[in-house]
């Protein structure tokens, strides 16, 4: 293959719910492919069917079903606590051989909250206040699957409720239902989207023309430093030269302020720029935040897997065409 390239990923920051990394030595098309797959084609679990046995809450069935659907469902393989890739563990329900549904293609959740029953066991000060039904009340029939109540501990500490609130119950109200979660992709419905944010931006390339800069006075250099709202420039204390600040690449937002400031300093408009900030064509700064259904790391790995599967499929079909 001519001009084959080997894209690299360099992780800048990683946490269970978010990841920032630099993708390099590839094109915009690859970066965008990765982004699109993460948003639309990484399979996750989400509640897809709801059977109501009793619903005397203030919200109607569809309303609650919609809310249930949007709860991120986490699959943690045995012995781990992380939100893993459910691709191997489940079969898409349309491809499953079972008649209606089976444990291979679905997970059942039971929810049964009766205000009057729960009310007696609540602490004195809370008694008779509306009771919030949350994602904690969803009991799965599969130990590896559970709703993702919170993204991280910080979110949990700040929350008012135990989990993701579904509906509030008052006296005499009862909600009993069975919810069936299935594997799907967010091309079909956004509830299967594993990411809250998946964006990239071009890596900024900051080039300082030292030769041209030598014609500037210290005041003018300081003016350039101050002109940039992103603070990507600073003056070297020893040499007095302009240099990019540490981590400037992450700060730069390609503002035009710097351009206007230096244009004003030039003797002739066609003079060389003192500082140039341009889009790199082969380096991308990604930022991915999970919805809670999967760990950010697994979303990235899963998206690469999806891409690989698709390319293999394409290759196989092309081979068939050749024959």
């Amino acid at each position, binding site marked *: 293959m001519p001009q084959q390239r080997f894209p690299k990923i360099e992780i800048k920051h990683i946490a269970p719910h978010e990841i920032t990394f630099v993708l390099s030595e590839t094109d*915009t*098309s690859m*970066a*965008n*492919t990765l*982004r*699109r797959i993460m*948003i*639309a084609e990484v399979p996750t679990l989400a509640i897809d069917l709801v059977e*109501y046995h009793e*619903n005397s809450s*203030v919200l*109607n*069935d*569809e*309303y609650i079903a*919609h809310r249930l659907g*949007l709860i991120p469902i986490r699959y943690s393989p045995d012995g781990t606590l992380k939100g893993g890739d459910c691709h191997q563990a489940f079969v898409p329900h349309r491809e499953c051989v079972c008649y209606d549904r089976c444990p291979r293609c679905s997970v059942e959740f039971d929810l049964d909250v009766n205000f009057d029953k729960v009310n007696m066991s609540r602490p004195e000060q809370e008694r008779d206040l509306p009771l919030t039904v949350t994602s904690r009340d969803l009991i799965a029939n599969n130990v590896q699957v559970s709703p993702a109540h919170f993204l991280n501990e910080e979110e949990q500490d700040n929350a008012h409720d135990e989990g993701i609130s579904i509906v509030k119950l008052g006296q005499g109200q009862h909600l009993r239902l069975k919810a069936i979660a299935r594997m799907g992709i*967010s*091309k079909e*419905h*956004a*509830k299967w*989207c594993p990411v809250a944010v998946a964006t*990239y931006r*071009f890596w900024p390339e900051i080039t300082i023309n030292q030769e041209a800069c030598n014609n500037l006075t210290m005041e003018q250099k300081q003016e350039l430093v101050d002109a940039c*709202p992103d603070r990507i420039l600073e003056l070297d204390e020893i040499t007095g030269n302009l240099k990019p600040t540490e981590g400037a690449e992450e700060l730069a*937002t*390609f503002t035009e302020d710097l351009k206007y400031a230096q244009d004003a300093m030039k003797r002739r408009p066609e003079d060389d720029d003192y500082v140039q900030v341009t*889009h790199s064509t082969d380096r991308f700064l990604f930022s991915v935040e999970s919805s809670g259904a999967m760990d950010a790391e697994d979303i990235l790995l899963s998206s690469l897997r999806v891409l690989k599967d698709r390319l293999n499929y394409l290759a196989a079909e092309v081979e068939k065409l050749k024959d």
Partner: protein
Amino acid sequence: MTSGATIRPVRNTYQSAMGKQAIGTVAINQYSRFDGLLYTMVYPHKPMVKTRTLDIVNFDNIPAGQNACIAVMAYSGYDIEDAVILNKASIDRGFGRCMVLKKQQTSVRRYQNGTMDRTCAAPDPSVFPDGVNDKRFARFKAVDKDGLCNVGELLENGTVIVNKESAADLQVFGHVIPFERAVIRRQGPDIVERERAISDKGHDTPGPPPRAGGQVRVAPRTEGGVRLDSSPGGPPVQRHGHLARPHHESPRLKLARFPSRMTVGKLIELLVGKAGVFEGRQAYASAFGEEFGSTDTVESAELALIRNGLNYTGKDVFYSGVNGAPLDAYIFSGPVFYQKLKHMVLDKMHARSRGPRAVLTRQPTEGRSRDGGLRLGEMERDCLIAYGASNLIMERLMHSSDAFSASVCQSCGLLQYKNWCQYCRSGEKVAEIRLPYACKLLFQELQAMNVLPRLRLKDA
């Protein structure tokens, strides 16, 4: 109501009329009410930009719209004029989701002859040829022992809501009169929200007879052809196009017509709202801002945007969702309060080829509710005459409408029956012609008024 002064006051007038059609929260007791037709929004927002009027009417507590992040740009061509492109993921997550409650009812009354309507349980399946599996029996699946449908039941097209029976003959007295079934049926797959029992009072008291029925719930999804409107004297028609772009391809929402409408208020709302988002508060934009009050101005919004590291003009860099390249222009974007109007194509679309006809004129019925035809009116007829399309006129006005074969006597010129002129006492010169039934009706009505129209026939 509208935020910020608009250059054209008519836009304020338009919005004053349109705000009433917005789907939102009707009243705090909306789910206890038994309205004939009620539209409610599932997740209404309080507007990002409020005004003094909205404060006075407590709009924040009963809002009627949602804040949408819009990007003012051309994208894909499906957003020409007032159309917008929505992000499909937003719709999935509940943007513009609304609920329609419809009342279906019938009266249960007492008649002069002492009989009374009654509601009763579904008939025994043995009445039907196929028993329990009979389609005609399946229609009664929603009906309870009291003859009314159960709450939470799914109603398909033709499902019985109330199984009512009334006396077959209301004139006869003193006999045992057989009862006939008069059911209330429902079109379309809906769900019963509430049932309404028959109240006992009113049988002998004046006033409307007691009623039985149910309230039916429909939850349509926002799709193409829903009418949206932005409030600040904005474009009156925001018909969002028939496309919802998938999330991974959407920049965000829409293109709007600013220049021709001169709705500066909307631009200001967007800017002020965007500043509000980043400052974490609702912006305040009464039209004639109090000089010493808290009204946000363009200038204060710009300062707020700069404070939060944004461009003060409200423009941002956008990337194409399709190929991932940055767009060539900076895009003006921010939150705007959108109202969903209760005009939905699904409720309005209509077409017919053949269908019911009116009894008197034999012309096609009028109106969607009666599966009526679409009128080719005088002006349309004039166009065809001017164009000289005489055969098309013939087809539209007669053959496709109320063509009628009649016998005309050529000697007396009167309409006759079946090749025999009763006036001339002969069948010799009777001819067969085709004419609109309405025309024949007119002649007969004139005759009834002592005006005698005669037809003079010529060979064509």
